[in-house]
């Protein structure tokens, strides 16, 4: 069966510091991968999606970037964090577009 892992579960970072959040999927090949941000337990906003290695699409302009160095690895990064980057970050995968998405347990990011 397929599983998705995100880490770390929680992270506290100072303003201006770099960020790297990692997500890996097991049990499937060439999945679509997604990064979402959720504010205050409400709806999810899609940040990035990827349909293959090295292929990244951004849905909203922001201080963050994403990379997919391997088929089942998706990384969310920032060179300098802002206070507004605080939130709950969720990684998800699907077999392909228009298919149900399956989420990891998220990373709670707090910026001080």
């Amino acid at each position, binding site marked *: 069966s397929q599983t998705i892992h995100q880490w770390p579960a929680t992270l506290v970072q100072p303003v201006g510091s770099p960020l790297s959040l990692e997500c890996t999927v097991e049990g499937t090949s060439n999945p679509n991968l997604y990064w979402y941000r959720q504010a205050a337990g409400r709806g*999810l906003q899609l940040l990035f999606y990827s349909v293959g290695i090295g292929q990244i699409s951004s849905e909203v302009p922001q201080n963050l970037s994403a990379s997919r160095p391997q088929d089942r690895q998706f990384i969310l990064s920032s060179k300098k964090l802002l206070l507004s980057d605080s939130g709950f970050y969720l990684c998800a995968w699907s077999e392909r577009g228009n298919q*149900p998405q399956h989420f*990891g347990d998220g990373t709670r990011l707090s910026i001080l």
Partner: protein
Amino acid sequence: TQLLEQSPQFLSIQEGENLTVYCNSSSVFSSLQWYRQEPGEGPVLLVTVVTGGEVKKLKRLTFQFGDARKDSSLHITAAQPGDTGLYLCAGWGNSGYALNFGKGTSLLVTP
């Protein structure tokens, strides 16, 4: 952007009560998905509705997709404390990759 509006935002009921939450849009969706999210965890897919007028049942949960495929509802019969969580509806955007989420209904079921 195809917006999904969910109502009510918050709902607090006692165990054993019935409830319905709604997901509405002015846009037509090819399908809608319902998720439940517990605090500190990722959303878990409950169901996908595809056909206008479709009704799907998942134990005590009944999901309906509107005839025009612009709205959906979730009805819970005899709610239990384990039903507590954030219920999110989501539909595919025009790109086919962006899943548009509503802001959710936060449900609290007390014993």
